[in-house]
């Protein structure tokens, strides 16, 4: 019996990465784009998309590529020798984020096996807005801003990942979608928000083939962390719990609900308040004993200042560094490749206080002592 061909959706955000070389922070918004073009910016995404596609050349005949016209994938696919099935329509040379969204929706509708996209945080967010976690996605990093954890290490790896995904069914894993908080941005603050989670095929290049970690292993280390935390939790302390799947596992262990994208406060193993903002936290802490529980958010290893800004410099200062608890699976820590954890709270004094070394709980009675660096430049 001839196996059914797998279908991969391909979306290239044709302008992603255009601002990078010319010193702009992203290409979202018409004005920025115009400026980038004026300054002679060239998009990164076509090149990166092709790098990924070339990697898949050897299985050309084993899959169908479903894509949008022209620069949104068709051109790249053809240049790499694929014969894509082209759907949808665009205004050539004038695509917007709406096109990315409709492409994603069409591909979900067409039930492709996975969606390969080239772009940056904005692109990831568009896809998330359009289809949520309906499809497994693989991100080709091509944008200026890459805070989201949905991207492969580089374009080639994204291609390899598609190959792997086609050969054997992969388990799916939630990865953070992060982007600049536009509201905050308009107020003159550069702040990155956690928007949600996309599903990516779980890949583990840190372990040898058959010993490769699986999601069960990842869950198991999360459970270990949760178990350890549940043993060590102290009464009378307020715990300010940041967003993330690892902190969610701790809440699950305690039998409490967790706001996945927001900050919750617990005390004596009970929820005190859910999805709180900075002011609410400050009011709750007041003069009480408190601890902060966070996990690195996104692909860069930020523990403060990306996706959990509710835990503000004032909150951190009030609680104190010695009461900051960082949790992360060993796999997540290893995937930082030796780079430090980062803080960028927007307040230099707080950042300096947090930098240095911090203990990270990675499993049941397992900890790392890990470097914390300043994340401003990221």
């Amino acid at each position, binding site marked *: 019996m001839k196996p059914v061909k797998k279908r991969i959706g391909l979306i290239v955000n044709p302008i992603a990465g255009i601002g990078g070389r010319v010193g702009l922070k992203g290409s979202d918004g018409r004005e920025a784009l115009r400026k980038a073009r004026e300054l002679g910016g060239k998009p990164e995404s076509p090149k990166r998309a092709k790098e990924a596609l070339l*990697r898949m050349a*050897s299985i050309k005949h084993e899959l169908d590529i479903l894509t949008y016209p022209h620069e949104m994938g068709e051109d790249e696919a053809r240049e790499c020798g694929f014969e894509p099935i082209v759907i949808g329509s665009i205004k050539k040379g004038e695509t917007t984020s709406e096109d990315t969204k409709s492409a994603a929706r069409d591909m979900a509708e067409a039930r492709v096996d996975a969606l390969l996209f080239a772009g940056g945080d904005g692109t990831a967010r568009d896809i998330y807005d359009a289809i949520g976690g309906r499809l497994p996605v693989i991100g080709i990093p091509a944008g200026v801003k890459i805070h989201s954890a949905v991207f492969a290490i*580089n374009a*080639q790896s994204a291609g*390899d990942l598609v190959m792997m995904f086609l050969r*054997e069914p992969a388990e799916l894993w939630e990865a953070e979608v992060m982007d600049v908080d536009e509201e905050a941005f308009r107020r003159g603050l550069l702040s990155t928000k956690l928007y949600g989670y996309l599903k990516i095929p779980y890949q583990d*290049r*840190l*372990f*040898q*083939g*058959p*010993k490769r970690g*699986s999601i069960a292993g990842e869950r198991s280390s999360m459970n270990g962390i949760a178990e350890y935390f549940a043993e060590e939790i102290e009464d009378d302390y307020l715990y300010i719990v940041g967003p993330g799947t690892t902190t969610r596992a701790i809440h699950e262990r305690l039998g409490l609900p967790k706001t996945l994208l927001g900050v919750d406060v617990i005390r004596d193993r009970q929820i005190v308040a859910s999805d709180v903002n900075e002011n609410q936290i400050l009011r709750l802490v007041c003069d009480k004993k408190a601890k902060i529980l966070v996990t690195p958010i996104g692909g860069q290893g930020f523990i403060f200042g990306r996706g959990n800004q509710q835990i503000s410099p004032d909150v951190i200062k009030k609680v104190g560094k010695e009461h900051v608890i960082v949790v992360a699976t*060993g*796999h997540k820590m*290893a995937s930082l*490749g*030796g780079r430090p954890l980062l803080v960028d709270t927007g307040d230099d004094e707080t950042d300096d206080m947090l930098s*240095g*070394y911090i*203990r990270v709980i*990675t499993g049941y*009675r*397992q*900890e*790392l*002592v*890990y*470097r914390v660096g300043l994340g401003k430049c990221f």
Partner: protein
Amino acid sequence: MRNERSLLKQNYHAAAWNEPIIMQMGRKGERGILVPEAEEEIKEVVGDVLSRIPTDLRRTEPPKLPEISQPQVVRHFLRLSQMCLGTDLNIDIGQGTCTMKYSPKVNEYLARLPDISELHPLQDEETVQGILEIIYKFAGFLSEISGMDKFTFQPGGGAQAIYTNACIIRAYHAARGESQRDEIITTLFSHPADAATPATAGFKVITLMPDENGYPDLEALKAAVSKRTAGMMITNPEDTGIYNPRVREYVDIVHEAGGLCSYDQANANGILGICRAKEAGFDMCHFNLHKTFSSPHGCSGPGCGAVGVRDYLEKFLPVPVVEFDGEKYHIVYERPFSIGKVRSFLGNIPVVLRAYAWVMSLGPDGIRDVAEVSVINNNYLAKKLSQVSGIGMSYPKAKCRLDQIRYSWEQLRRETGVGTEDVRRRVVDFGVQSYFESHHPWVVPEPFTPEPTETYSKDDIDEYAEILRYISQEAYVSPDTVKNAPHKSTITRIDERILNDPKKWAMTWRAYLNKRHSWDSQGQ
């Protein structure tokens, strides 16, 4: 003519007997060996003994063992042995951290003499004076080599030895009323057993990450120590082959905090006679006699993790210990502070015997030669590999590489899509053992870790380097050849997914018979 000899064994092919599983062999009624039947007189006296077993405890169905004649059993296992690439058969440079060196045949001969193989571990000490003398004297050798004061050979392998050291640390603090010390510090590039076994011994484990040059982060250590520090358990040189020259500072920091320091010297090949645990300030250490001291690895044991401690920790050693009163050797059990037992009896003593004979054959100069030559071999291989495309050395700035080096195929993978697991399968096609990549996690991407011990000649190393050079070239020209390897092995690629699938895995033939229908979709 040697220069014209091709370095590559291009025409090699592994034995591929396609042997059946033994459970499929033989015919009903065949016998491989007959058991000595009890004499008639005995039978007459005791009668039908089996009828005395309570009915519900009698075996009704004979075990479904195969029924095979002796020649077929011999042939089967000889064929299996031919499909196993022992160190004696190949240039076993690839299995770094394992110290695959030559195990002298004369030592094997000695270890199989009835004067050791037919000793019962509970024999009266009067009747084992010879072996006790060897144990005692060899402990003395290790004391000299390490600077530690007392050794035990009870642990059956490296992991069990590290566990023993963790137990000693626990007992030490308990004896001082400091049981709150419940944290062991280790480093990411120490052997994983330095983290796993203290956990079994009840400790919290704190791991230090490497700094940008591959050394354990000294500042992190300073941040890690506290009143809860029980000890530090590390290797040096680490897994990466990097020797940490500031090790004494690390030890001092832990000592100042009140902890003990345990030196994992499973593999000490590069520093024998060069530097010792004592001068670096360690309180305890262990050597793997099946690595550095040449006892064969036996498909993973029997081995021996010899544990050595300073005099102030002697009383905690597992029981029994061997003592000498000037005339006779004694097996001493009365030791109130002992951690008890980690393994039955005295451990794998034939391993100690082989190691004893090995040291006796080398003497002080020979031991130093072992270190020097293995370090020369390693640096020579490094030189050769630096000329191979696609290979990078981890942490190239770290200066002192002793007996092994962790390399990376990351560049090769980026440029060709061929990664370390592919190369690992491909080397087998040239008649060498699949290499060791790295312990987990793979902080060095696409890793491999060769360790050319003193066993390998210059020609051997040249051949090994040539194999890697050839495969690298192949990866650039026809990557699929490497990706689909092996081509000349005993078998073709295994479907590894089954190994993690509860519906399909089978650890016994009987389980396979139950599950084989679920394999159908998988090409069987």
